[in-house]
C-alpha cells in the first residue's frame, strides 16, 4: 500500500519532487519499446531487401532479452505480498505480473515465428495494404515483392501494451496500456494477403467495437474515481474496505456501476459472451499469424488485467461482483459451446473455442482465491501454447487454387492419411482443448474447476463440465474427420512446414505434452505458498483474507 495515493487525495497539488524510478525493474518493457522504436528507424534507413531479416532478428532478440530480464526479476519478488511499486505506484512488479509478462513474451516469440514465415517470397501479409484490393496497383506491388515489414515494430508495440496491461497499478495506466496494446492490433488485423476486403472489414469492426468497449471502461473508471477518490488499485481497495472515501455520501451505486462498466471493458478484451461477437469475425479475417498472437498473448494480457482489477482493486467487493461473473461465465460457456457445434470454418471454430475457454477461466476468477489465481495462470499459459500450435497448423493447409488457407472443415477430411504428422499434432491440440488427461488442457481445467468447487461454485463447475462435453464433441468430430473419412474431392494442398512454422508446432506439441504429463513443477510454483492462516481459502472473503494477496497493492 503506497501512501502516495492518499496524499493525492488529501492535496491534489502538484508534486514537485521527481519520481524515483527503478529502471532495472522496468527494463523488460523498455527493451521491447526500444526495439519497436529501432524497428521504425530500420524501416526508414535500412535497404528494402535487408529489412525483413533485420527486423526479424531485432524483434526475436528483443523479445528474448526481455524474457531473460523478466526471469531475472523473479528473485526480487519472492514470497506472498512481495512486489515493488514503481513510479508512484503506476506500475507493479509482483509475482503474477512477472508470470504473465514472461508468458506473453514467450508466446509472442512463438507467434513471431509464424509472422515471419515466408514462402516463395510471400508472407501472410498484404504486399501493400494501402492499395485498393483487386486493383492493378496491388498486383504491381505483389509482383514487385513489396513487403510490410512494419509488421514487426507494430507487434512489438502491441507486446509492450500487453506487458504494461498486466502490471498496471492504477486504472489510467491500465487504460493507456489497453490502447497501446489494441491500436497496433487493429492495424495488423487488416493486413491479410488473401481475402483483403474481408480482412479490412474485420479490422474496422474490431476497431469500432474496441473503441466502444474502451468508452465503457473509461466511464467505469470515472465512476470508481468518484467513489474512491483515486484511480490507484490499492487506494480503491482501501476505500471499499472503509465503505467509501468520504467524498460522496452513499456512494455505493457509483462503485457498483463502476465495477460493472470496467468489467464490460475487460470482458470485451477477453471475449466473454455477450461481448464476444467480434472474435469469430476478427479471428477469421485477420492474417492467421496475427490471429495466433491475439488468441494467445492478448487473451493472457486481458485475463492478467482482469484478475488484477478484480482481485486487488475490487477484492473487497467480491460479494458484489461475483453474481455478475457467474452470469457471464455461464452465458459464455453455454452459448459459445452451442454455437461452435455448427461452425464449418476452422478459424471460426477456434475462435468460438477460445470464447468457451475464456468461460472456463472465468470460473477461476469467480473462485476469488489463490487457487483460482494459480489455476487461471496455468490455464492461460497452457492454452496459449496449444492455440498457437493449432493456428500454425491452419497456416499450412492451403486451398488448391489461389494459395489461400483452406478454412472449410469439410476439406480437411482424410488429412490424417495424406499428412499424418500434421494431423497428429492437430489432434493432440484438439484433445488438449477438449481436456483429455495427459494433455495440458486437462490439468488446466482440473485446476480451475477444483478452485471453483473449493470456493463453493459447484453449479458453475457442473455447467463447465457439461459445456466441455459439448466442445469435446466437435473437437473429436474434427479428429474423426481427419483420420477416418476419405479425402475430399477438393482436398487442400498441405505445405511442408518450414523451419519457423515447424518450430512453432513442435513447441506447441512439447508444451502441451510436458505441461500435461509433468505439470507439477509449474503448478506448484505459480503462487507463493500462502501463509498458513491464509490456507483456508474456502472462505476467501472472510477474516481479512483477500484474494489479491498474491498481488502487491
Amino acid at each position, binding site marked *: 500500500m503506497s501512501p502516495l495515493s492518499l496524499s493525492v487525495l488529501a492535496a491534489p497539488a502538484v508534486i514537485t519532487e521527481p519520481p524515483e524510478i527503478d529502471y532495472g525493474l522496468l527494463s523488460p518493457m523498455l527493451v521491447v519499446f526500444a526495439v519497436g522504436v529501432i524497428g521504425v528507424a530500420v524501416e526508414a534507413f535500412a535497404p528494402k531487401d535487408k529489412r525483413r531479416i533485420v527486423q526479424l532478428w531485432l524483434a526475436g532478440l528483443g523479445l528474448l532479452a526481455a524474457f531473460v530480464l523478466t526471469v531475472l526479476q523473479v528473485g526480487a519478488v519472492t514470497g506472498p505480498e512481495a512486489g515493488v511499486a514503481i513510479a508512484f505506484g503506476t506500475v507493479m512488479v509482483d509475482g503474477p505480473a512477472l508470470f504473465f509478462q514472461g508468458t506473453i513474451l514467450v508466446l509472442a516469440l512463438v507467434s513471431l515465428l509464424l509472422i515471419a514465415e515466408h514462402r516463395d517470397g510471400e508472407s501472410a501479409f498484404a504486399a501493400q495494404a494501402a492499395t485498393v484490393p483487386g486493383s492493378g496497383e496491388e498486383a504491381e506491388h505483389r509482383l514487385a515483392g513489396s513487403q510490410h515489414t512494419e509488421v514487426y515494430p507494430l507487434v512489438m508495440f502491441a507486446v509492450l501494451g500487453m506487458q504494461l496491461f498486466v502490471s498496471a497499478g492504477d486504472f489510467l495506466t491500465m487504460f493507456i496500456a489497453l490502447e497501446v496494446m489494441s491500436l497496433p492490433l487493429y492495424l495488423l488485423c487488416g493486413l491479410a494477403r488473401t481475402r483483403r476486403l474481408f480482412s479490412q472489414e474485420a479490422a474496422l469492426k474490431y476497431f469500432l467495437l474496441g473503441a466502444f468497449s474502451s468508452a465503457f471502461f473509461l466511464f467505469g473508471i470515472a465512476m470508481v474515481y468518484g467513489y474512491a477518490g483515486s484511480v490507484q488499485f490499492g487506494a480503491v481497495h482501501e476505500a471499499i474496505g472503509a465503505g467509501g472515501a468520504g467524498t460522496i455520501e452513499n456512494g455505493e451505486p457509483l462503485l*457498483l456501476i463502476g465495477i460493472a462498466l470496467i468489467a464490460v471493458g475487460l470482458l470485451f478484451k477477453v471475449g466473454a459472451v455477450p461481448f464476444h461477437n467480434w472474435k469469430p469475425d476478427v479471428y477469421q479475417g485477420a492474417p492467421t499469424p496475427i490471429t495466433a498472437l491475439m488468441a494467445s498473448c492478448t487473451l493472457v494480457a486481458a485475463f492478467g488485467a482482469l484478475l488484477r482489477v478484480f482481485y486487488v482493486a475490487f477484492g473487497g467487493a467480491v460479494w458484489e461482483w461475483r453474481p*455478475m461473473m457467474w*452470469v457471464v461465465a455461464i452465458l459464455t460457456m453455454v452459448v459459445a459451446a452451442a454455437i461452435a457445434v*455448427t461452425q464449418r470454418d476452422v478459424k471460426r471454430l477456434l475462435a468460438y473455442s477460445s470464447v468457451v475457454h475464456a468461460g472456463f477461466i472465468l470460473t477461476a476468477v469467480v473462485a476469488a482465491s489463490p487457487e483460482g489465481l494459480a489455476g487461471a495462470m496455468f490455464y492461460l499459459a497452457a492454452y496459449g501454447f496449444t492455440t498457437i500450435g493449432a493456428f500454425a497448423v491452419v497456416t499450412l493447409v492451403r486451398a488448391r487454387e489461389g494459395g489461400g488457407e483452406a478454412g472449410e472443415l469439410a476439406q480437411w477430411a482424410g488429412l490424417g492419411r495424406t499428412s499424418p504428422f500434421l494431423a497428429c499434432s492437430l489432434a493432440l491440440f484438439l484433445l488438449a482443448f477438449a481436456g483429455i488427461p495427459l494433455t495440458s488442457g486437462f490439468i488446466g481445467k482440473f485446476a480451475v474447476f477444483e478452485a471453483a468447487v473449493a470456493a463453493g461454485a459447484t453449479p458453475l463447475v457442473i455447467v463447465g463440465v457439461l459445456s466441455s462435453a459439448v466442445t469435446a464433441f466437435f473437437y473429436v468430430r474434427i479428429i474423426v474427420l481427419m483420420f477416418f473419412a476419405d479425402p475430399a474431392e477438393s482436398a487442400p494442398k498441405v505445405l511442408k512446414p518450414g523451419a519457423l512454422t515447424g518450430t512453432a508446432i513442435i513447441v506447441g506439441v512439447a508444451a502441451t505434452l510436458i505441461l500435461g504429463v509433468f505439470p507439477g513443477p509449474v503448478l506448484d510454483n505459480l503462487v507463493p505458498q500462502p501463509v498458513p492462516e491464509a490456507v483456508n481459502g474456502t472462505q476467501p472473503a472472510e477474516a481479512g483474507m483477500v484474494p489479491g494477496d498474491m498481488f502487491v497493492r
Partner: protein
Amino acid sequence: MTSYLAAEATAVTAAADGAVHTYAWLLIAFPLLGAAILLLGGRRTNTWGHWLAIAMSLASFAWAVTSLFALLSYAPADRSRVVEVYRWIEVGGFSADVSLLLDPLSITFVLLITGVGSLIHIYSVGYMAHDDSRRRFFAYLNLFVAAMLVLVLADNYALLFLGWEGVGLASYLLIGFWQYKPSAAVAAKKAFLINRVGDIGLLIAIMVLFTTFGTVAFGPLFEAAPGAGQGVMTAVGLLLLLGACGKSAQLPLQAWLLDAMEGPTPVSALIHAATMVTAGVYLIVRSGPIFEAAPTAQLVVTIVGAATLLAGAAIGCAKDDIKKALAGSTMSQIGYMVLAAGLGPIGYAAAIAHLVTHGFFKAGLFLGAGSVMHGMNDEVDMRRYGALRSAMPITFATFGLGYLAIIGVPFLSGWWTKEGIIQAAFDSGGVTGQILGWATLLGAGLTAFYMSRIMFMTFFGKKRWAEDAHPHESPMSMTVPMIVLAVGSVALGALLVFNYTLAQFLAPVVGAPHHEFDLAHMVLSPYSLIALALMLAGVAFAWVRYARADVPGAAPKGNFVTVAARNELYGNAVNEGLFMRPGLVLTKASTAFDNSVVDGLVNGVARWVKGSSEGLRLTQTGFARSYALTMLFGAAIVVATTLGVSFA
C-alpha cells in the same frame, strides 16, 4: 483360519532410498523402450531388433538382481520400499501418484519374469528364425515383460490394473501372432473375451475398494481392511477371485488357455505357463489382508483351486496335442497355487514357492515341446511322435528333468514345493483341510500319470513319425535356455524351500512360516509317503499303457470320462449354452433398445443442441451495429446484475 500371524505380516512400508531403488522404474523402462524402438523403428530394426530386445530384457534382469541385493541389505522388517516414480497431479486435496512397491514378494516375481523372460527371448531367436515378422514378435515380448513388471511392481490397484490390461493386450497380440491361421485369430479373440469377464470383476473390486476406503494404494488399504465390514470384504474378495480366475485360467473361466496354445511356443512357455497366468495367484497373495478379512471368499478360493487342479489334470490326461496336454497341466498346477493362496498365511509362501519352481520346469517343458515341434515340422500330435530320445538327446534330457520335477520325484524342485502345498492343506485343519489335502494328493497321482503319458508317447515306444519327418536336435540358442531351465527344475526347489529360505524372505509381506523346517518330517510324513506311492502308481500305469503297449495312430473311442476330458470337460459347451446364447439374445435386445430408446434420446439431444446452435448463429450477423447493440444489452445485464444483487 484366523490370522494369528497378522501382526508379523504387517511390515512397515518405508520410502525408498539409495540409487538402486530410486531408479526402480528402470526395470520397466528397459523393456518398454525396447518395444517402442522395435515398433516405431519399423523395418530398419529388422537385422538387430531381436538382439536389442534380448539386451533390454537382460538389462532389466541385471537391475532386478541389483535391487534384490539392495533389498537384502535392509533388516527384514524394512524391506518394503515404496518408490515414488512420479507425481502426476496434485491439486487441493487430490493427488495422483505413480509409485512402485519393492518388497520381497514383488522382487521374487520380478526376478522370475525377467530371468525366465530373458531365457525365452534367447530361445525365440532360434525358434522364430524363419519368421518374417520376428521383429514384431520380439517387440510384443518386450511389451509383455514391461506390462507384467508394471503389474507386480505397482503399489496400488489402479496401476496394477494398468499392468493387468497390458499383459492382456500383449497376450492377445501374441496368441494371434499368426493371424493368417483362422484358429489363431479365433483363439486370440476367445482369450480376449474371457479375460474381459475377469477384468470386469477386478475393476468392480477396485471401485468398491475406492468407494469404501477412499484409496486404492496397498498400504492404507491393507491397514484398514481388517476393520471393514464382512459383507464388503467378501464381495471384494469374490470379485478379485473372478479377476484371478480370468487371468489364471481357473474354473469357470478356464476355456481360453487351451486355445491360447495356437500362439508360438515361446509365448506358451513365457506367458501361458511361467508368468502371466500366475498373475491371479499374485493378486490373491498380494490382497492377502482382504481375503483374511473375508473367510467365505477364502473358502471359495480354495474350492476353485481344488476343482481346477483336478479338472486340469483330467484334461491333461486326455489330450493328444502335446501343447494342450501341457496347458491342462498348467491349469492344474495353478490350481495348486490358488488352493494354497486361499489357505491364508500358512499357504502363501508355499504358493509362491511352487509358482517360482513351476515357472522354471513348466517353461522348460514347453520349450522342450517347442524343440520337438521344431524338429518334427510343427507336428503337435503325440500319436505321431515316439522314440525321439535318440534323435534329440538334449531335448530329451532337459524335458526329462522337467518331467521328473513336475511329477514330484523327491528332492527335485517340484517335490519340495508341492509337498509344501500338500502339507499346508492338511495343516489348515478341519474337514475342509482333509478334503483339500486329499484333493492335492489325488492331483499328484494324476500329474504323474499324464506327464508320464506325454513323456512316454514322445520319447519312448516306437516311431510313429509322419513320412517326411526328419527329427533333429535344435540349435544352440534353443538348447542353452532349455539347459538352464532344466538346472533350475532340479535345484531351485531345494534352494528355496530348504530351511524355508524363500518363506523367511517373504515373511515380512505374507507372514512367517508356521513351524520350523523339518526335513525328516517332510520326507517321512504319512501324506508324503502316500504322495510318493500315488506318483509311482501313476507312472507305472502310464508305462503300461503308453510305453509297453503300442500307441494307436488314432485316438481310441474311450469311455465317457476320457471323452469328457478330451472335450475339455465341455467347458466350451457350457460357455456356449450359459453365456453365448443368452448373450446373443441380450445383445439383440440391447441393440434394439439402443436403437430406439438410447439413440432416440441422444439424437434428440444432439438435434436440440444443433437447433439452438443454428438459432444462436443468426445473432452473428456480421453487422458491427448489431454487435454494438448486443454489447449494449450485455452491459445493461452486467450493470443490472451487479446493482440488483446489492439492492434486492
